[in-house]
């Protein structure tokens, strides 16, 4: 297999490990903030429902955060192991930014995580809120620094090159606040908040549907407190969808204009026009044909591409051919990933508007069709985030530092065999371990909020779940053991 050289394998490995990794922080950035808000609401209003929700999401947060941490440690060493030339050359610029990430974010998160998860009884509600806020601040700081690093690779600024070929810093402010950083930071943070909102909304909608199904059955519905918690959760998530989805679309638009200014080749791959042109139509969908440098069977809307990207009808949109072949990113991946991201964004907007309408009519908790849609959209944020990152990272190719350092000149002098073995190990370990983690998270989500916290009250509620929530009769016989709701796949 000729094409499976060390470089290709190293790229596959990086893409694989970083894609797995980003799922967890993207979720915990939003969830940490949500939990800080819940904690604050409980502190100021004294309402028990917020604490119930905090405790419900705490367990899910702990699992997701743990997976984020361990997959992140892998990332911090992979730069050196697989991309040593890149590390040597960019270390003086990017290293300190990552150093700041470790010192201002990772320690903050890790230092207060223990108190947030285990320490409420020991430190009291106020310090517990403080600890939660510090964890949330840590996730934000982490996003700040790592997005600065990534943005510098996209739009390098404030640097010079020394006599051994390393990038060195001339102006730190320009390095950190490089041209694409503010846009990317806002876009990613909003994406993380939306992702979490849709997970929370999806889980709430799932329980609303469940309740409806078992309405009137004695013992089959959760306690009134739990039902109230589900509603609060759903309402908060839908407010986020209604408010943040439109803001995100505007932020995405601004990010797109910024990309047009700095990385026209990426825009060309996103838009799919052969030649640069004014009055450019927007290609909604089609089949990318990299060889012919065009999109086959394109369905397009006249003028819209020019209108979106230049905010005028006859503005020029760059075409694929405006970039030399050797400097072009792969067409197909970027083209499709972008449409997947934007499509999901539009669906998120729909659900947000729909929720506003239902809320106005007073039927937010009584709309099974919309709830089903919300359940389906539960994981949509993750797909949108992965798609967005594929657009921006694949769109930067064939460079690691845009226009300055080629990917082919960045990797370590390592045998393909060694990378192939480590790649195989990562694939096996990540799928099995993180698969198990996702399974545990889903099982946790299947229990309604306020029910089944701690082994003691689980046993009290056990008969209720055995009758109501366990999906099929074949499972009910087995569920005499406390601590399990629903699927019993974890038993032998």
């Amino acid at each position, binding site marked *: 297999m000729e094409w499976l050289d060390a470089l290709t394998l190293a790229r596959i490995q990086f893409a694989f490990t970083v894609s797995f990794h980003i799922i967890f922080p993207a979720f915990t950035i939003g969830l940490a903030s949500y939990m800080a808000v819940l904690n604050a609401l409980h502190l100021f209003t004294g309402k028990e429902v917020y604490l119930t929700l905090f405790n419900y999401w705490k367990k899910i947060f*702990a*699992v997701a955060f743990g*997976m984020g*941490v*361990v997959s*992140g*440690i*892998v990332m*911090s*060493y992979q*730069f*050196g*192991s697989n991309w*040593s*030339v890149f590390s*040597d050359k*960019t*270390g*003086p610029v990017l*290293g*300190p930014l*990552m*150093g*700041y*990430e*470790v010192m*201002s974010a*990772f*320690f903050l998160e890790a*230092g*207060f*995580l*223990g*108190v947030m*998860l*285990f*320490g*409420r*009884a*020991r430190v009291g509600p106020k310090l517990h809120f403080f600890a939660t806020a*510090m964890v949330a601040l840590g996730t934000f700081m982490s996003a700040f620094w790592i997005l600065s690093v990534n943005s510098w690779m996209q739009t390098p600024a404030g640097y010079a090159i*020394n006599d*051994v070929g390393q990038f*060195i*810093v001339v102006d*730190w402010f320009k390095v950190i606040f490089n041209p694409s950083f503010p846009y990317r930071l806002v876009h990613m943070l909003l994406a993380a908040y939306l992702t979490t909102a849709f997970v929370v909304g999806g889980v709430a909608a799932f329980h609303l549907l469940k309740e409806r199904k078992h309405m009137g059955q004695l013992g089959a519905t959760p306690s009134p407190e739990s039902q109230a918690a589900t509603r609060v959760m759903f309402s908060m998530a839908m407010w986020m969808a209604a408010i943040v989805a439109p803001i995100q679309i505007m932020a995405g638009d601004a990010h797109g204009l910024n990309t047009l200014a700095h990385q026209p080749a990426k825009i060309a791959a996103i838009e799919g026009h052969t030649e640069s042109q004014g009055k450019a139509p927007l290609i909604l969908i089609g089949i990318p044909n990299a060889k012919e440098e065009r999109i086959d069977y394109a369905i397009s809307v006249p003028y819209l591409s020019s209108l979106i990207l230049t905010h005028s009808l006859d503005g020029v949109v760059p075409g694929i051919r405006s970039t030399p072949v050797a400097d072009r990113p792969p067409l197909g991946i970027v083209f499709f990933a972008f449409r997947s991201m934007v499509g999901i964004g539009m669906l998120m907007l729909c659900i947000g508007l729909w929720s506003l309408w239902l809320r106005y009519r007073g039927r937010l908790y009584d709309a099974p069709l919309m709830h089903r849609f919300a359940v389906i959209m539960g994981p949509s944020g993750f797909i949108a985030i992965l798609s967005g990152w594929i657009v921006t990272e694949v769109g930067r190719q064939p460079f690691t530092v845009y226009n300055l350092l080629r990917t082919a000149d960045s990797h*370590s*002098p*390592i045998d393909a*065999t*060694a990378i192939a073995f*480590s790649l195989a*190990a990562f694939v096996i370990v990540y799928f099995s*371990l*993180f698969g198990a*983690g996702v399974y*545990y998270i889903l099982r946790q989500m299947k229990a309604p909020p306020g029910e089944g916290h701690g082994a003691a009250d689980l046993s009290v509620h056990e008969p209720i779940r055995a009758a109501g929530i366990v999906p099929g009769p074949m499972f009910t016989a087995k569920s005499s053991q406390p*601590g399990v709701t629903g699927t019993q796949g974890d*038993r*032998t």
Partner: protein
Amino acid sequence: MTIDYALIWAGLIAFAVLAYVVLDGFDLGVGILFPWAKSEQERDLMMNSVAPVWDGNETWLVLGGGGLFAVFPLAYAIIMPALYAPIIIMLLALVFRGVAFEFRWKSQSRKYLWDWAFAGGSFVATFSQGVALGALVQGIPVSGRAYAGGWWDWLSAFSLLTGLALVVGYALLGSTWLMLKTDGRVEQLAKRATFGLGIVMLGLIGLVSLISPFLHEHFMQKWFAWPAMLFVAPVPILVLVCAIALFRGIRLNRPLMSFLAVEGLFVLSYIGLVISFFPYIVPSSVTLWQAAAPDNSLKFLLVGAVFLIPMILAYTAYAYWVFRGKVGPTHDYH
């Protein structure tokens, strides 16, 4: 007078790695001792004793790796490919034991699987760290700005010995930690383990110390040339003091004394290594000044480090204070 930023940073990175060893060492050690626990309750207790702090402990490893990238990018770019296999294995093992902290409580009938993930992951991660350390001490061939050796160079009798020594050392840290944090049967188990591991550990420290000076010419000069010997002589003497304190701590039932004595052994062994290494960061190939990023980068990060590292130490100490005392069998989270 000009300030030697590279030297300051070498000290800070060395401190981060030492902090990692003395902190994550005991929670990895608890994992290594896991198979000796007799019951589920005992394993619960052992895991609970480190659950609130392991995450912060492991972050020092990220600072060690990330810091190396930031301030000694050339060393990072040479060492990581050279130690490719042990580093990748260590990372995977850390993934196993890291997820086990949460997964173990979520699983019922397959809890044993996560028990093994925790124990096995802790053992393999520790062993790989020891092997990586041994391979680094042995030296790494460099040509130009890149690693120039083969993919199995890290494997030698010496690196296997240091791997074993670190497993024993972390297990000893773990056992004294358990003496400090638990009671009942686990405490008894920990005491017996401490006694046995303590003896083996001292033997291994002696063995590694005897072999190391013969690996590089400049190691030898530091340890056995007159008058330099006068300055390094306190290290072996203090090792003896710690060894006595360790065993007295067991006999007098003062676990904190034993725990600190083992930490002392680690600090001294580490100081010994630092003395041997200096001024090289990759022994016999690259000095710390050759590997350092430009002063501009070192200064920029140092400004933050001066404020942030004391803060990190303060809230880390606070977290340990919150979870002080012996751990109970139940937990307000799990």
